């Protein structure tokens, strides 16, 4: 899903990094957000609604709406649409509202 040829924009991608989503390894580029990297890898469902368990993805991608909360390296409720991806990040679907205190 990455755009290689664009008539106007030259995309400067950072150095390759890899992280895991639900244990699965995903390749990304430094400078991308976790949401962008997951989207590029074809991941659309990021969590499920609390009561009806309906699938949820991101919506605004600019940190405004809380549609994209996930568990990152043990910390709950991370807005992954504004969270830069780092080498070795552990990204998981969050069930429920999550704990405020991060677990290691």
């Amino acid at each position: 899903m990455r755009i290689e040829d664009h008539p106007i924009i030259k995309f400067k991608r950072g150095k390759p990094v890899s992280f895991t989503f639900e244990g699965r390894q995903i390749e990304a580029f430094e400078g991308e957000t976790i949401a962008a990297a997951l989207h590029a890898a074809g991941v659309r469902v990021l969590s499920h609604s609390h009561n009806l368990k309906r699938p949820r993805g991101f919506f605004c991608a600019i940190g405004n709406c809380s549609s994209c909360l996930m568990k990152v390296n043990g910390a709950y409720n991370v807005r992954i649409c504004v969270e830069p991806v780092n080498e070795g990040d552990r990204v998981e679907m969050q069930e429920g509202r999550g704990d405020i205190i991060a677990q290691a």
Partner: protein
Amino acid sequence: MLKPEIAIVGGGPAGLSAALSAVRQGAEVMLLDRDPSLGGQLVKQTHMFFGSKKEYAAIRGIDIPGKLISALEDEGKGRFKPLLNTAVLGYYDDGVILADKEEEAMLIKPQKIVIATGAAEKMLPFPGNDLPGVYGAGAVQTLMNVYGIKPGNRVLMVGAGNIGLIVSYQLRQAGVEVAAIIEGASRIGGYLVHATKVRRAGIPILTSHTIKEAYGKQKVEGALICNLDENWCAIPGSDKDMKVDVICLAVGLTPQTELLWQAGCQQKYLPELGGYVPLRNEKMQTSLSSVYVAGDVACIEEAGSAMVEGKIAGLFAAADLGYDEKVEERFLAYSQELEELRAGPTGAKIREGLARLNGGV
């Protein structure tokens, strides 16, 4: 506690212009933005700008922030302090603002504050609007223009205002198919130049159409659209099934006024201006004398007017602190610029809204 002369919240075109204007007057400015880079909405706008020459028409949106930032670094040496990754969370009665910079709390007590926090996208109610694949236009632009990632393969665009038109065109440039642009109103809201470009690219624009439902198991697999009559009621039997994997909502913006509510600034609901907007005088000063506003947070408009409002807010925030060189002269020039930008038929809605804002009713 940090005590800058002027704090500006938001580093989009409005906030950057406010900073430049205040720094030119001689004031010391701290500019706070929650993003990792300055520029606000402009960082994803790859199209040539419409608007006034003075405010960078015919330059691509993405190229504007760089010009403002280098002017700021140049002219504001030692007096311009940008703080990135810094989200302003609260405004307290004693004029203290609370910010979060990379998980560290910061307290700041400026003498004057300019709020230029921009706008948030509106949502549209329909069954299935919570499925992954229903995105705001800003999200689609961020993915494709900032990160170079296709949002999907086939998009249904909802809304034929300037944003819907421009983003559709940009999708085509990125190699994504746009199945159609649908618009509830009976006419296209955006400028003719953009609509023509889109049509020439082969994208149909369906007016008097709305979305009834998005469907799909785990993510969007399609949408049902239908025709509307002149009372905006669905015409029975007019349903059409569109196989798309992305539904992009471009149905308007609303000012991000949370900090203004917290500060206790008086606001008024004016749909022409985008929702609740702060009352302010011609200096862009709100009902709290130390709080100024500029840009989309004050009225959903364009980058050009956001920049001029920023210049006015920055000018008076500085002048109130005694940096009042050539205030009258500069103010006159900026007000004329604003008037020119809002002249003509496209500015009619804004002019009406502003008249109601100031004139009671």
